[in-house]
């Protein structure tokens, strides 16, 4: 293309052509696919390389990504977030629980063998039963008689945690307009394997945007299922007018490590993450 057309293109893109010339140019553009392709390419170049909201976003993303040079840095930077206080408390609590669990398992170790069972949830009943009597709840005390096979080695060793989730446990994940508090199940509870009425109850505080809905996902500790977002159970969480919630479901639990995630349906933001064991 000659200099004249180069100048015309530059002026057209800079929007400095007078109306008559612009009209002529656009007529030419409509009849000449090569010229149209060139204008399209030059416009794309300006969009891609000039100042744009995308490039502002890229600049922010680059600066955030710069904090994470190695996989390990993800957890070290995270330690500086406001969540870290809660996490420290949880590490401490977890440490105490671990000592107790190890002592208990040492006592049990010599008793009976157990198969290695991948954690799964079996649905006992397809319906939730709001308001069902709580007397049906299994006791979570390990001293209760247990009909399921007992492990021949420390159970916890088989229940490998999902590291990406562990860092969120024990914290109210999302801060903002509202918060969600889970009262039941208790944090870190151990359920007895077998049939149970799973209950999730608690309350919300703050202003919940209209139309906002929540769901509860139960994941096993299978990392692949978590990455593919395949929960073993996905239940809608309905809020009552008094801002409380109660979800009940009859389930058959097999031994394993499970995670509870309460998520905002619309955004996918996690509001609550916790785990429980089934032995």
């Amino acid at each position, binding site marked *: 293309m000659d200099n004249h057309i180069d100048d015309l293109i530059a002026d057209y893109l800079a929007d400095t052509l007078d109306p008559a010339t612009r009209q002529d140019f656009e007529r030419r553009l409509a009849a000449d696919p090569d010229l149209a392709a060139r204008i399209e390419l030059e416009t*794309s170049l300006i969009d891609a390389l*000039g100042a744009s909201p995308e490039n502002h976003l890229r600049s922010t993303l680059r600066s955030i990504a710069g904090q994470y040079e190695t996989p390990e840095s993800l957890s070290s930077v995270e330690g500086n977030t406001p969540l870290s206080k809660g996490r420290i408390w949880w590490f401490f609590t977890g440490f105490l629980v671990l000592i107790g669990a190890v002592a208990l398992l040492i006592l049990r170790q010599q008793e009976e063998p157990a198969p290695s069972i991948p954690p799964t949830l079996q649905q006992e009943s397809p319906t939730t039963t709001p308001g069902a009597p709580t007397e049906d709840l299994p006791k979570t005390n390990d001293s209760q008689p247990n009909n399921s096979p007992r492990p021949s080695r420390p159970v916890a060793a088989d229940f490998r945690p999902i590291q990406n989730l562990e860092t969120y446990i024990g914290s109210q994940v999302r801060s903002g307009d509202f918060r969600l508090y889970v009262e039941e199940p208790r944090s870190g509870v151990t359920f007895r394997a077998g049939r149970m009425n799973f209950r999730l109850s608690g309350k919300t505080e703050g202003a919940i945007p209209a139309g906002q809905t929540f769901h509860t996902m139960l994941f096993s500790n299978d990392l692949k299922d978590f990455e593919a*977002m395949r929960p073993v159970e996905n239940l809608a969480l309905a809020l009552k007018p008094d801002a409380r919630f109660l979800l009940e479901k009859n389930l058959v639990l097999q031994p394993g490590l499970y995670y509870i995630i309460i998520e905002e349906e619309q*955004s996918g933001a996690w509001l609550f993450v916790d785990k429980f064991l089934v032995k």
Partner: protein
Amino acid sequence: MYFIRGILNNEAPVLGEIYRKFLPVLFGMLRRNGGTFEDARDVFQEALVVVFHHAARPGFQLTAPFQSYLLGISRFIWFRQLKKNARMEVTSDLEEGFDIDEDLEQKIFESEKRNLFREKFDRLGPDCRQLLQRFFDREPLLHIAEDMGYTADYVKKKNKVCKAKLMELIQNDPRFGEITSHIRLSKTSPDF
């Protein structure tokens, strides 16, 4: 729309939260498919830019959990890279997950095209890069000329030469033809 809003508004704290929460998951997936942490960071950034464009459309509604959506896009981007580089076979867990519809696919190809432009732009000499960047940022010609100590005519000529070089680099790359054919196909596909 907590995360989506954070991306659209370029909110650094929310973007940081997205990195902390989802980048490790993506890294886990990529690692099993021959990817490095650096690959994961690059793919993750591209996926966030795609979300930015896709979610900016009027009437956008998220129909899946955010994690599935973001990681689905990331998977698609990584899958394309693997195919292009023919680095290895893709394992089944990388291919499953969130379905990428045509509209989203279009955004991904457009993002790929912009990346190709950036890559070629970076191959230009420093003078050309500086000059073109100012033109692309729509700085007035006279201002550029005055600032760089050149005449306006010289700046205009230099701009033409640099732009021609850039376009030549882009058009001679086989990826450009492949990406634009995807975009054209997508544009001309009938809506069902």
